[in-house]
């Protein structure tokens, strides 16, 4: 699971990176928008996988940190006129701090109770965002968001997002392939044994949760600015479920899996919404198919196909 990028892997990453950077040259607003959104949601899914794939716990409330990052940044920019850097940092910090507190309590429990507690905390965040109308505008949505002039242009914002996201993904890659990352997988694999090789498992899971919250906050900050608004739905449990499905679809046992899952699901949703309003049914059916036939997601499917044609590989 955690192996250094092979030469082909690195080449693939480089190609994707270059293609990505060239997007604005195609002069298509639609394409720039799509890639921007995919980048943001990919980071969101990758951050969740630190908890699920690497740490082995299920979080049903990951949207909370995404929403907090987005709202804090949006409010500071717009209502209080903060400059971009302090505002964004504050947003990410708020998300990370919340994650740290929530994780402290959640890591006392495991399995279902852990999941339910994460759900409860995130619904608490939702309820606060919903009710604190004076600050957040409640369910009318906090909009418009004052985006600083330097990134107010579509292309400029695209490159800004791309730089932030690529750096974030790189950092996440390092973390998941660090001593911490590998030890975390051991905790996932056998929490009892991990304890008995001297690993402080609760601390590990807490740290993983905080990291996940941090990057969810980054994604949220970008999201709020991109959409020029933040809405309470972003914190509702259905949003957490959606990102969970993205992560699962891509494959939780690989690093890039969630990224692929996020991109695929995002595009599917866009396309489906153009023809029918029954995206939930499509999503539900996809979910059923994955769960019943391919629980290790698209990456798992890719591996199976690869193995059939000779030679295993690394993600």
């Amino acid at each position, binding site marked *: 699971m955690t192996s250094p990028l092979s030469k082909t892997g690195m080449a693939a990453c480089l190609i994707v990176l270059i293609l990505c950077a060239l997007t604005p040259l195609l002069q298509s607003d639609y394409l720039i928008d799509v890639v921007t959104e995919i980048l943001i949601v990919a980071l969101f899914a990758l951050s969740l996988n630190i908890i699920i794939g690497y740490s082995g716990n299920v979080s049903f409330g990951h949207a909370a940190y995404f929403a907090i990052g987005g709202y804090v940044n949006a409010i500071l920019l717009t209502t209080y006129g903060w400059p971009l850097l302090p505002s964004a940092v504050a947003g990410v910090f708020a998300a990370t701090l919340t994650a740290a507190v929530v994780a402290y309590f959640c890591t006392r429990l495991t399995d279902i109770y852990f999941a339910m507690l994460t759900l409860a905390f995130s619904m608490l965040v939702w309820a606060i965002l919903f009710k604190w109308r004076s600050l957040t505008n409640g369910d009318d949505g906090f909009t418009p968001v004052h985006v600083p002039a330097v990134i107010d242009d579509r292309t400029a914002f695209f490159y800004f997002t791309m730089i932030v996201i690529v750096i974030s993904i790189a950092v996440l890659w390092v973390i998941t392939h660090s001593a911490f990352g590998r030890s975390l997988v051991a905790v996932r694999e056998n929490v009892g044994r991990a304890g008995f090789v001297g690993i402080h498992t609760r601390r590990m899971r807490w740290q993983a949760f905080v990291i996940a919250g941090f990057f969810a906050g980054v994604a949220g900050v970008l999201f709020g600015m991109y959409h020029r608004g933040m809405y309470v739905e972003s914190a509702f449990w259905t949003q957490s479920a959606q990102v969970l*499905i993205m992560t699962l679809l891509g494959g939780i046992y690989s690093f890039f899996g969630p990224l692929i899952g996020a991109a695929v699901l995002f595009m599917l949703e866009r396309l489906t919404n153009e023809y029918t309003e029954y995206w939930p049914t499509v999503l539900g059916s996809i979910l059923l198919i994955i769960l019943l036939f391919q629980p290790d997601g698209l990456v798992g499917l890719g591996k199976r196909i690869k193995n059939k044609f000779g030679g295993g590989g690394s993600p």
Partner: protein
Amino acid sequence: MLDLIREFSPGLAILLTNPQFAFIQLLNSISQGMNLFIIAAGLSLIFGVLKVINFAHGVFYMFGAYVVHTVFMDWGAPFWVGAIASALALGVIAAIIERTLFRQIYEAEHLMQLLLTFAIVLIMGDLAKVIWGTEQYSVSYPASLKGATDLGITFYPSYRLMLCVIGPLILIALYWFAERTRWGRMTKAATQDREMLAALGINVPLIYTSVFILGSALAGFGGALAAPFSSPVPGMDATLIVECFVIVIVGGLGSLWGTFVGALLYGLVFNFGSVIYPNGQDVFAYLLLLVVLLIRPWGLYGKPEAGGH
């Protein structure tokens, strides 16, 4: 002193000075709690035996509300026929889902099970839109329970009084089922050791199916009962399922009595909380959950083993 309270919370002041108002809030708490209990009991039952947390319980509730609307309002049958129809309809749906889908996932990890039930939420949610459209319907109160009853201290809506009574009745019925019938004993045994039970020649899959049917029928029935005041509309399942989770976890997963107490607590916290601090309406429930889980991580009447592993 009272003026201080009135400034801080007008609602609290009224509660303290007006016994009728306080009593009404108490009855509101109980009636809402009992309605939620009926639904949550189904969820708790399904978890207790099948060890599955059924996210779809919310859409089952919603279907129950829609079905009673169709049978009672559109077809003109008596309200109670509609409510029973809701229970039956959900029983049938549950049986189909359990046979085709759930069977596959009993041995799977919890994440997979949760997501399977969520897939059902997505599909059935759209199905409801297809069948019933997207407008909000209204369901009248049944004629026999229209209006209010004179309780001496105050008048109170008869329908809600009925809820206060039917809740405990269902608790007793479920308790009787669990403790005094052969089915109940087999269900308990299946929870503990399904292989042994199967070795004794008992049809364990049938027990599982029956539990799922009963639990879902309760959701449907609860939805029907809720219909007059929670008008059937798409999305009504989203908040309800979280309410159910709060109740079941506060009470302790797998404990029927815990669910009952949890539901009552929820009703009390929600109603009195909303009166004292109207702005915190949605927040109180989650605070209740958090406070309980911090003191008793497995709920008030839960046991660590009940979490399933």
